[in-house]
């Protein structure tokens, strides 16, 4: 038993949902109780998807347990197939159904549906969301591309003369951190080398697309947490090489071009010369000098944490004082990356431990997940989000990739934004005592909801203007119960209301009269 306040990852079937939702024409029948349907809101509210995820939950209840939950499952499969007509059906169990051992795979196969049925075994008491997504993607690729595999031991025929090399992009899913935008940027990088994109999967792919994954010359693994098992399978089965560099940041983007060129026998240099994000010059410009040596703490999934540490050091001139991940599956990689810069990696999925580490290191900037954003806010430290778990804010309306040239620009902007601007910081050092320009004040371009460091006392409160009205202590107390973000408006409206009616005292009654009066 493990005490958990907040989790970095959901259960593995949520990972499966991310893959199912990313694909165009599969449906997932999940043996699960009603409460598990909460997962739909991750997609419809956080990611603002305009359609429900393609998931049918059996929503069995206690009274079904003694009876036939297996039949319930089969009926749900049949009904889902009839209604949604998917090209392939995923079936599986959530944590509760795993305990009642109904064997969704066997039950669904027995229905003899005219489409591939792919059973998912996702041990809910051992594994987590990313693992579930990786396993689901792997099972799909095996089931759908597998039948097109050449006999074992067949050598991959050389690429026909005159045909451009082709690459699959593996790993982006629904609800991923900027998975929506990264593939486009990587496609631009590949285009510089004359490489075409064959299939992007799972995000936006169809069952037919998955079936032809083996045709490409190369697999680009965008997010190893999700795409790696499938890439390894495709390498074994189709002899396709895969890339190990994740092109986040300028340096990694250039390394990525080198790696792809190397795997395909191309010349990377012309392409490398053409990757020139503005961020590079922004970082060289004198205004950025003040970024030098800023102490940053980095935490996220392994891919984004490792990448962020490199960008922070090599491209922004920061000093990385802490590096960690919650992806235990990739602990080794993160430990190596940390060791290379003289640090001991923090590998944990207990956010309290992360919080303690941040408090202890007192960095000037935290690059983390939404969890670290909250921790940083509480500690009054600037923060930018670099990795899942995600929040509605991590799905901006604008194009905001992390990878490739534009990704490098996005990183520069989003990481520098929370910090004080250069000159502002100097002035602050000079005039520490200025009452509205003190060192507890947030950067001037950010809203006052920023770091909650202690402010000097006695903020001058403008006295109630013309025709003073008095509040009874009772009404004043009531006002304090109104949420702070509307309190000011409520006070002003009530005072205006009282003045207009020439009421000398604001009572509770007046407060509510005014509320009713101004209510829209």
């Amino acid at each position, binding site marked *: 038993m*493990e005490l958990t306040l907040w989790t970095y990852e959901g259960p593995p079937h*949520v990972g499966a949902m991310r893959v199912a939702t990313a694909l165009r024409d599969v449906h997932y029948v999940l043996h699960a109780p009603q*409460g598990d349907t909460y*997962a739909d809101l991750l997609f419809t509210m956080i990611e603002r*998807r*305009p359609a*429900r995820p393609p998931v049918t939950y059996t929503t069995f209840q206690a009274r079904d347990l003694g009876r036939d939950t297996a039949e319930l499952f089969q009926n749900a499969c049949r009904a889902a197939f009839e209604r949604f007509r998917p090209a392939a059906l995923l079936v599986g169990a959530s*944590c509760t159904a795993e305990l009642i051992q109904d064997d969704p795979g066997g039950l669904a196969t027995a229905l003899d549906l005219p489409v591939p049925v792919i059973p998912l075994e996702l041990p809910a008491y051992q594994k987590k969301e990313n693992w579930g997504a990786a396993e689901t993607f792997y099972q799909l690729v095996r089931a759908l591309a597998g039948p097109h595999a050449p006999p074992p031991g067949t050598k991959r025929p050389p690429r026909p003369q005159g045909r451009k090399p082709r690459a699959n992009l593996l790993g982006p899913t629904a609800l991923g951190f900027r998975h929506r935008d990264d593939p486009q940027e990587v496609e631009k990088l590949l285009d510089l080398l004359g490489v075409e994109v064959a299939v992007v999967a799972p995000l936006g792919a169809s069952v037919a697309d998955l079936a032809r994954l083996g045709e490409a010359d190369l697999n680009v693994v965008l997010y190893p947490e999700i795409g790696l098992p499938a890439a390894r399978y495709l390498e074994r089965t189709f002899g396709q090489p895969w890339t190990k560099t994740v092109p986040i940041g300028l340096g990694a983007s250039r390394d990525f071009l080198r790696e792809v060129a190397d795997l395909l026998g191309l010349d990377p240099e012309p392409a490398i010369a053409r990757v020139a994000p503005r961020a590079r010059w922004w970082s060289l410009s004198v205004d950025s000098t003040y970024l030098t040596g800023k102490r940053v703490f980095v935490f996220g999934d392994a891919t984004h944490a490792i990448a962020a540490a490199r960008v922070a050091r090599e491209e922004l001139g920061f000093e990385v004082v802490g590096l960690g991940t919650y992806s235990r599956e990739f602990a080794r990689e993160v430990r190596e990356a940390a060791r290379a810069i003289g640090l001991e990696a923090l590998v944990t999925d207990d956010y309290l431990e992360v919080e303690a580490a941040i408090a202890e290191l007192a960095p000037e900037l935290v690059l983390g997940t939404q969890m670290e954003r909250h921790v940083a806010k509480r500690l009054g430290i600037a923060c930018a989000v670099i990795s899942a778990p995600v929040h509605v804010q991590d799905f901006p309306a604008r194009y905001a990739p992390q990878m490739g040239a534009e990704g490098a620009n996005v990183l520069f902007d989003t990481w520098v934004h929370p910090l004080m601007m250069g000159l502002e910081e100097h002035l602050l050092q000079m005039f520490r005592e200025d009452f509205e320009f003190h060192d507890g004040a947030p950067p001037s371009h950010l809203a006052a909801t920023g770091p909650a460091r202690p402010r000097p006392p006695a903020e001058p409160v403008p006295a109630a203007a013309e025709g003073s009205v008095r509040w009874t202590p009772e009404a004043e107390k009531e006002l304090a119960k109104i949420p702070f973000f509307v309190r000011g408006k409520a006070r002003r409206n009530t005072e205006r209301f009282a003045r207009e009616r020439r009421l000398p005292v604001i009572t509770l009654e007046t407060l509510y009269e005014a509320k009713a009066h101004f209510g*829209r």
Partner: protein
Amino acid sequence: MSPGCADAPIRKERGQREVFCGLTGIVWLHRKLQDAFFLVVGSRTCAHLLQSAAGVMIFAEPRFATAIIGERDLAGRADLDEELDRVVGRLLARRPDIKLLFLVGSCPSEVIKLDLARAAARLSRLHAPAVRVLAYSGSGIETTFTQGEDACLAALVPTLPEERRAAPPSLLVVGALADIVEDQLRRLFEGLGIAPVRFLPPRRSAEMPPVGPGTRVLLAQPWLGETMRALEERGARHLPALFPLGAEGTTAWLAAAAAAFGVPEGRFRAITEPGAERARKAVERQRPLLAGKRLFLFPDSQLEVPLARFLHGELGLVPVEVGTPYLHRAHLAPELALLPAGTPLVEGQDVDAQLDRCRTLLPDLVVCGLGLANPLEAEGFTTKWSIELVFTPIQGYDQAADLAELFARPLVRRTRLVA
């Protein structure tokens, strides 16, 4: 013939349900009971549900957590009792401010038949007198969304102090209400001369209300069937009433108490009329926009029937389907009587079939859960997400206009945005 839908048939539907489980109640209960802590004994799914339902909004160290059952526990390699004791010990060491701890059962803990009531009794002994430990189930196989609060309060009832024998009748308001609403109601009861008035749940665990045969109960929420049953076992009596939504609902709700406590008619009118009038006027302002609009409610919180009654009676909306996860016929009888005759009432859910009906009926306003709202908006429907109705103060006279506004806003927004 009886009016409205008092005896109307209720269609029961079985199929995929799209509702939260009872664990969700923790999201508001932990804010209300300020020295209580809710420890779910469950899976990573349960932890993730709570986190997703609560949003990262209330990230300030929450007074809830999940003891996630692991492979070792299931394989019998770890002793579940010992594990639970260890987890609770660690938790209480971290949070010495906790006076009341709820062990909250989940689907996995129910399926493996983990006896949390027994564990609670053991832990209570272990940590007495500093901390009291109680258990209830919020599992999705047994409870739907708001039923979690019912289960929690029902678990509290047997532990409430006994009312003194000779004590005069007292009023007990049951169901978590926003503090501001509670204070308004308190003042109204004071004005009516009804005393003592107590609330369950209280804000602090030391203020548990006593109960006994003199206790008269007003339910503030429609989902408290089990709690009421437990209170009746302690001798308390239920005062049937409309729920305090809107001017009419609030007056009727207060009137039920006034009648039980013999408040003279004149005094009742003098105390309630200003608030009622204010509420009527403020609600009336939304009427032109809302009257005649066709309303479809998906099942979510069990507030659906009282909401339909308010929206129909005070704002003139026409309910074309009222879905509810569970319908307590007796507690909702006064509400049902005020719905227009022939209103389709559906208990339970088959979400795909219900979506089909919604698409056929083409309502002007759909009240639904978070999973359905954006997809329906994308299809061109105007929606109001229902969870907000549970998380915002909507009861009483001075919230009536806010309640009306919650429904008006989506429609106003549609008219504002240029196509």
